[in-house]
């Protein structure tokens, strides 16, 4: 299997059926488009080619996993489509907007409202309660605190933690913390959830709960979920798996197609 598009027509129709109605067709069916993305890191005289020209479209409402060994450029690609980094060459469009054209204020706006980030280490602000953590992106967006409080409680309810809103992150289990982090990522109703090894620090059972939560969010809110993961269960739950190897897009497949490889990974 070499570079190329393995997007089968069967999968496309299935996805379209599944997500019909949850999407506004006027918004376009691709939420992220990467076109010939290259990234070169310069360290003194030596150059490292992290990405050598990756082209990929992410559909609205899709659950996509990015796979790849460490050093493959997976993280770089992940950062790029999340608006955290700019490509050296090529274009990344988030909601039809070329992120290379954005100034810092617009980038911050985009990160605040378009993308919700979920981290392996949860990255909750330890000095704040769960409620305040969820309210933080809303206050960055300029929401007044009463409104933000109400919305934050609502979202915490959605992830099943409404009654623990005033606890500090340190007082909660890993699974609970990750659910708070997911609630925080959802604070400004983003189009995209970007999750970096979201189950990497969780045990098997809580990991499964998080996966269920992701599927639930995709189905009910129509949010696009992109994860970088090695978790077999996560890969199985995703609509598409993108394999990055040596700075190139090696292949795109469905979990069923990659059955053999999943065993290898495990």
């Amino acid at each position, binding site marked *: 299997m070499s570079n190329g598009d393995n997007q089968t027509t069967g999968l496309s129709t299935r996805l379209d059926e599944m997500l019909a109605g949850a999407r506004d067709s006027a918004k376009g069916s691709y939420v992220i488009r990467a076109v010939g993305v290259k990234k070169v890191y310069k360290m003194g005289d030596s150059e490292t080619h992290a990405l050598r020209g990756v082209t990929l479209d992410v559909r609205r409402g899709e659950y996509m996993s990015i796979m790849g060994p460490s050093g493959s450029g997976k993280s770089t690609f*992940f950062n790029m489509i999340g608006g955290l980094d700019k490509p050296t060459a090529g274009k990344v469009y988030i909601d*039809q*907007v070329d992120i290379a054209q954005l100034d810092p204020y*617009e980038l*911050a706006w*985009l990160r*605040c409202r378009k993308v919700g980030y979920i981290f392996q280490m949860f*990255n909750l602000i330890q000095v*704040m309660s769960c409620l305040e953590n969820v309210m933080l992106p809303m206050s960055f967006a300029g929401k007044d605190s009463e409104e933000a409080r109400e919305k934050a409680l609502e979202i915490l309810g959605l992830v099943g933690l409404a009654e623990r809103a005033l606890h500090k992150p340190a007082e909660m289990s890993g699974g609970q913390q990750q659910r708070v982090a997911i609630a925080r990522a959802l604070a400004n109703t983003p189009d995209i959830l970007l999750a970096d090894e979201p189950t990497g620090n969780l045990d098997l059972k809580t990991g499964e709960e998080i996966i269920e939560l992701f599927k639930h969010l995709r189905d009910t809110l129509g949010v696009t979920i992109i994860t970088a993961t090695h978790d077999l269960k996560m890969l199985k739950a995703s609509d598409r798996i993108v394999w990055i190897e040596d700075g190139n897009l090696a292949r795109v497949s469905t979990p069923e197609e990659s059955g053999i490889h999943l065993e290898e990974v495990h």
Partner: protein
Amino acid sequence: MEQKIGKQIKLPFRRAMQISLRGIRIRFGRSLVTVSGVVLGIAFLMSNLTGQLIKQAIAKERAQRDTVNMMLALVRAEIGSVSGKKIAVAVCGALSDVDRLLLDQVVAAGPESVRGLGFEMKGVTSVPVESLGQEAALLLVLGNATRSELKLSALSAGMRQRVVLDSVEDRVYAGPADSSVRRDPFFGKESDEQIQKAQQQARAERFRTIWIVGISLLVTVLGVANALLMSVTERFREIGTMKCLGALSAFIRTLFLIESSLIGLAGSLVGVVVGALLPMIAYSFAFRFGLVFGSMPYGPLFIAAAGAVVVGTLLAVLAAIYPARFASRMVPASALRSTV
């Protein structure tokens, strides 16, 4: 179809203040260490300023006492002990500190009576000019007027012997006294050579003080900068996360500038109090408690304290410029790194 991308708004200062304060409170131990660095630097600056003020005040007080003692010695040489004698005091113009001290000492020496003209004081009987000199052993003429409005003959009328102590050199009277006790114009004044030497010494000492205080303040700045850099490194993930959530670089910068200015303010306030009290107490042991606290010029002391607080706060903000820039330039992707 191009979709609208808005510009991220700047958060109100109040919000940054809240987050900063919370950060300081949670990392209280760390903050205390940083604060104590500022305390030390500012206390050192303040103790030098206070020490100088005390030294000046004590020197002034001592010079006054020396002058008074010298005058009293001259009086004793002329009329013997003051106690049991009648003293007349005339005041022309405003009294100086030396005048007051002299008057106090004379009254305290236990004369039979003190008659006064032109002023009111406890233990002094105010009398008209005709009866001022009656039977008096000594006439004190005090005050800063260089030309007496009253004739010496009128003031000293009725004195058996005209012994006059005048606090102003070369005051012009209508007539000469029989025996006047005057300040020796050369008393307490050093020769030009001595003065030059003393000035040179003072200059050298001032330079040394400025040098040492400057170095100690520089060390303070570096200490605060180092502590804040540590704090930035420690909070890499937190800062990156905030950026991912939509925080502007300016907001991150503001967080650190607020934190360090609060540290600077708190440290300076404590440092000023410590730095003012320590030399005052130390000098009190060396001299007299009342002398130090009584002669202390509190106005200049307050100005020095206010200056030290401003300097401390500004230096802390100065120290934060680099760490704050360092933090604000951090790429949000570093929040994703799990191993920080």
